[in-house]
């Protein structure tokens, strides 16, 4: 039974196709101005790769910021439920999921079935999100993907004190003018990011084990800092942590398709 999950976030869109409990494939693209277009583009790219067509998908759950506008989805769920479910599916020992996406950051607690138990999400502020990492790396003149590896070369972490992304960017400019070491500034950016995330995680409380998802989980500097601050080691996912929202949506889709016997028959 082929099902799909589609996660349209603020910066990227992801799609995952599953068949009888196996991941057939996944795809990530940068978002277009309209969520529907992002969803179609990422799904079509994946379908083409898998040599499938829309009609092969028996059920699709959409999630993410654009979840309500995606016409090919059969139902939608919040990305909070989906990230929790996806991470738990990959590693059933997971009870806490930290998701740092483009424009938001959340800490999610799940039960033994991977279902939502509690969560917190950052308030309307870009600090502690992927977007603020991008802004800061732009100020530093490096690609956001380099921020993690670069920070590993630092000898002295520069403390970024401003919580506001815009002010933090100005603080970075100031350090650049002072000709400080770029690796040290990068380490400071990751440290500031980790501190913001830790604050949020503290609000919901931690239950072992912990997984980290979303684009920012690809930044080794932030991840290491956070592990140190929390005194915990994160589980290692066998899949790209950026697709976990879409994966969770696909896991839900596999469950929901069972409730639609007449629909299955028609396919």
């Amino acid at each position, binding site marked *: 039974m082929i099902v799909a999950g589609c996660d349209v976030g603020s910066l990227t869109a992801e799609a995952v196709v599953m068949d009888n409990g196996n991941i057939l494939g996944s795809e990530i693209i940068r978002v277009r101005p309209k969520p529907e277009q992002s969803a179609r583009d990422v799904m079509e790219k994946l379908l083409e790769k898998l040599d499938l067509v829309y009609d092969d998908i028996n059920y699709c759950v959409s999630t993410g910021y654009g979840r309500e506008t995606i016409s090919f989805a059969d139902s939608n769920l919040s990305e909070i439920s989906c990230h929790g479910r996806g991470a738990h599916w990959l590693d059933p020992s997971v009870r806490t999921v930290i998701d740092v996406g483009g424009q938001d950051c959340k800490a999610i607690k799940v039960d033994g079935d991977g*279902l939502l138990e*509690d969560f917190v999400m950052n*308030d309307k502020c870009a600090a502690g999100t992927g977007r603020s990492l991008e802004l800061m790396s732009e100020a530093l003149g490096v690609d956001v993907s380099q921020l993690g590896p670069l920070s590993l070369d630092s000898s002295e972490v520069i403390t970024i004190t401003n919580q506001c992304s815009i002010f933090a960017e100005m603080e970075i400019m100031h350090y650049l003018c002072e000709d400080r070491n770029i690796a040290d500034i990068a380490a400071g950016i990751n440290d500031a990011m980790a501190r913001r995330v830790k604050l949020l995680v503290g609000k919901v409380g931690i239950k072992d084990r912990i997984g980290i998802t979303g684009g920012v989980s690809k930044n080794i500097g932030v991840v290491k800092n956070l592990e140190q601050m929390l005194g915990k080691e994160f589980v290692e996912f066998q899949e790209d942590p950026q697709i976990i929202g879409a994966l969770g949506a696909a896991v839900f889709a596999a469950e929901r398709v069972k409730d639609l016997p007449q629909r299955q028959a028609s396919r």
Partner: protein
Amino acid sequence: MRALEELTEVSENLENKYVSDWRNQGKKVVGYVCSYLPEEILYAADILPYRITGKGVKDTSQADSYLTRVNCTFSRCCLELGFSGGFDFLDGAVFINGCDHIRRAYDNWKAHQSALPFMYLLPVPHLINPEGRQWYLEEVVKFKEAIEAYFEVEVIDEKLSEAAAVYNETRRLFKKLYDLRAKDEPPLSGTEVVSILSAAAAMPKKEFNQILSELIEETEASSSKATGKVRLLVAGSLMDDPEFLRNVEDLGAVVVADALCFGAKNFWDLTDESGDVLEALVDRYYNHVPCPRMAGEYSRRFDFVKEQAERAHVDGVILEHIKFCDTHGADNALLKKDFEAAGIPAIELERQYGPLADAGRLRTRAQAFLERIRR
């Protein structure tokens, strides 16, 4: 549902037809903020108390020039309406030092060319104790004298007693309405109730009581009942605009109870009609379910919210606060912890008041909260 339509219409217009009718009779209208103002004093002076709102404001550029980034959007919207003449139908305004945000809206409005002819600040103590009660009594007497002097009226005890009776009637009717909401099949949505509460604050109570009685009768007879939905209580910052709850209820929930200062917190306590009426009013307003601006009263507040949650057997509690509302924001963190410990799921939601409404983000959180409850 004729009565509901009527009240909804009242809530949607700043100068509603009851205000116009009142003014056409040559009578005065005085705006006020906060549930710590004994409205009965104005009512006894034949002045219509009108609760100041920030509803319908599309842009706050004038208020923005006076306030800082960390003033809440409610005080911002109220001030904008004041500056732009939205409250020109008022003969005066009474503010309370309820919180620093609204106090600053008062300071700036009073100093502005758009200030109303009568501007008054009624200080309310932050501690509930015998000394504080004495101070509050003195301030209420001063306020009464200021009204008498400015509007050239006399507020006699007989009129005050009449007002106290009318206001108590409103409170009893609201309790009846909330009993209906608490039923297994709530006949009204939370969105509709916010409109009713908002109308109550903007029209004469005698007329309001009549319409509310009709509404209760209509509601008891009506067959439109919300079923199969997640039952919620909402508590937190001031809410007189139905949009926030509409957004939540659209996702498959129904708000069946509240602990809001426009809602249950404002009408739950009655005024004792047996003794000295002014003393009774002072006791009633000073000791009513405490707002988080009162120091050291958390446990009473928690008990009240929990009582409301239990009598309406809710599935979850929404603890909302307007961004930068420190009093409710900090209180909600405690309430969240205590509700979870009591086995009732709770969520803290930060929101904006008025034109800056942040619907998408709120929807995601509210939807996830409902998914958590339904799992």
